[in-house]
């Protein structure tokens, strides 16, 4: 793939917009929100990131990643015009057809907004299929919020209720959003659980404290979705690395309901 655009989202976090070098491959490429791919920095290896753009936007594919190890550091050295490898899409999908006619609450923390961005835009691009859409998004500090321009877009829309928050101590003098940890802000926002689907993604600690809040608000476990991650290599069910108990995250995930997760052994 060609990197056609690079955006620095936050310290150490970057988005690539990618176009297929082979136009026919690009025309034939299809994916659904929730799926992931493996991106190559040739010479360094591959990393797994969800596809962060929506399937409704067909001309490109986007991924967002944080510089953390060998491959992501190598990827962050690349610029527009460079080539990276891409293989996918892999994994299962958010069942957005089943959500039609319902309210949606998206809850994300920090670098975990990218896995939800695909499904958020997918639903916003099909806006009249869904009722109320609420997004609760928080990060450690204002600088750590990703997709800053899109957050502005979502704030400006009157068919989306966006609540942003930063951790206590992470606010700047001109910050107008909330201050508080994401689970606390979800509790304050108190979305109505009737006919509502909750989609949550964040660091393990955030998920651990958000799920009980949602339960308190009346969300049943099979109405709460998340996307898991684990160390991956092949991405297609052969190398035996990504399983949690019997479940291969690359084949039977990464999208799961809270009910499915409650049945998994405590190994993630």
């Amino acid at each position, binding site marked *: 793939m060609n990197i056609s655009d690079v955006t620095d989202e936050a310290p150490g976090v970057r988005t690539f917009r990618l176009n297929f070098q082979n136009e026919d491959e690009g025309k034939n490429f299809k994916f659904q929100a929730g799926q992931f791919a493996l991106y*190559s920095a*040739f*010479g*360094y*290896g*591959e990393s797994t990131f969800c596809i962060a753009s929506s399937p409704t936007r067909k001309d490109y594919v986007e991924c967002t990643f944080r510089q*953390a*190890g060998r491959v*992501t550091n190598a990827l962050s050295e690349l610029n527009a*015009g*460079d*080539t990276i*490898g891409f293989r996918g899409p892999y994994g299962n999908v958010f069942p957005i057809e089943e959500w039609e006619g319902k309210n949606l609450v998206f809850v994300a923390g920090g670098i975990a907004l990218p896995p939800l961005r695909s499904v958020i835009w997918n639903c916003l691009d099909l806006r009249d299929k869904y009722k109320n859409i609420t997004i609760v998004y928080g990060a450690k500090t204002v600088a750590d919020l990703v997709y800053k321009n899109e957050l502005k877009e979502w704030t400006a829309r009157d068919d989306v209720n966006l609540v942003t928050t930063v951790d206590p101590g992470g606010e700047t003098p001109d910050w107008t959003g909330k201050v508080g940890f994401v689970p606390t802000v979800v509790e304050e926002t108190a979305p109505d659980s009737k006919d509502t689907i909750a989609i949550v993604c964040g660091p*393990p600690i955030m998920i651990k404290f958000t799920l009980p809040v949602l339960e308190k608000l009346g969300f049943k476990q099979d109405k709460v979705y998340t996307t898991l991650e*684990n*160390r991956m*290599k*092949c991405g*297609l*069910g*052969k*190398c*035996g*690395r990504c*399983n*949690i*108990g*019997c479940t291969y995250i690359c*084949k039977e995930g990464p999208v799961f309901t809270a009910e499915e997760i409650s049945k998994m*052994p*405590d*190994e*993630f």
Partner: protein
Amino acid sequence: MEKTLKKEKFNSLITGLKDKGYKTIAPKKDNNLITLCEIQEADEIHFDHVQTNNSIKEYFLPKTEKILSYTIEKTKVSIEEPEGFAVKSVVFGSRPCDAASLPIMDKVFNWDCTDKFWIERREAITIVTIACDKCDSYCFCTSVGLAPDAKQGSDVLLTKISDDEYLVETETEKGEGLIKELETVFSEPPSGTPDRQVATVEKKFEIDKVKPWLDENFVHKIWAEFSTKCIGCGACTFVCPTCHCFDIVDECTMSKGDRVKNWDGCQFKMFTLHTSGHNPRSTQDQRWRQRIMHKFKYYVEKFDNILCVGCGRCSRVCPADMNISEMLEIISTDEGQPEPVSKE
């Protein structure tokens, strides 16, 4: 099809295989190690052993192999896929346990996406198995639904019927084809009932009791007890015919390189380590539990097969003298089972 093969015909067999373009892999003695490796002459073959040090696995899933190559020129990358990796071969002298590992592994390598590196090698290699006429205390094939003369995975099964003669039974069309190709080497089937010399392998545990216990005991202090000695060396994984976890890495210079698939193992600490530093299996007892669970529960649930053939290599090779069949015996018996810890 039934035939017999005399030991004196081994020379003609090996020469015949060479003439027909087959590479021959057979057990060969090298100092004290008996290894399955490529041979050129019949006198290199050694059949007076219980088990080879290595398993048949490396001929289907090599220790390391290139899965693609690339060249980088400024911003352009071109990719090349490897060819010719599946070499027409015969394994002459596999054991039934090793042969049985192949249809078991076929399931994961054909699960949804197919692995061409595995499949093309399966097509190119013919398995001639020798039934076991002796075993040792580490063998436990009969505890996992197999036998010293099991047919699963074999194209041809040889069974010793006298000091210098083997009964030859073809199990597949491929096996029949091989016998027909080398017709002159084989003799007519024996008259009467041949005296099959097959070892008696004592059953060590009831396999039907293992999975039910594993279903209930993900949390149990026995995992720490079993794995106290484990040093995480991974030898068990490497010699096991059914362990198949692998790593994918890039090896390169500035302008060209290869993407390589290498053997890996769940017993290593780095296997599940995230870049963030988080490790879902950070202690050896969690890693040891994964080994047992994968083989005797997860693979059964996914593919309806136990991921173990009872060859005993893992226990023979363990530097800490851990023994998997002893552990399975403890799990499967009610007597002497430690109290489970309360589940958190």
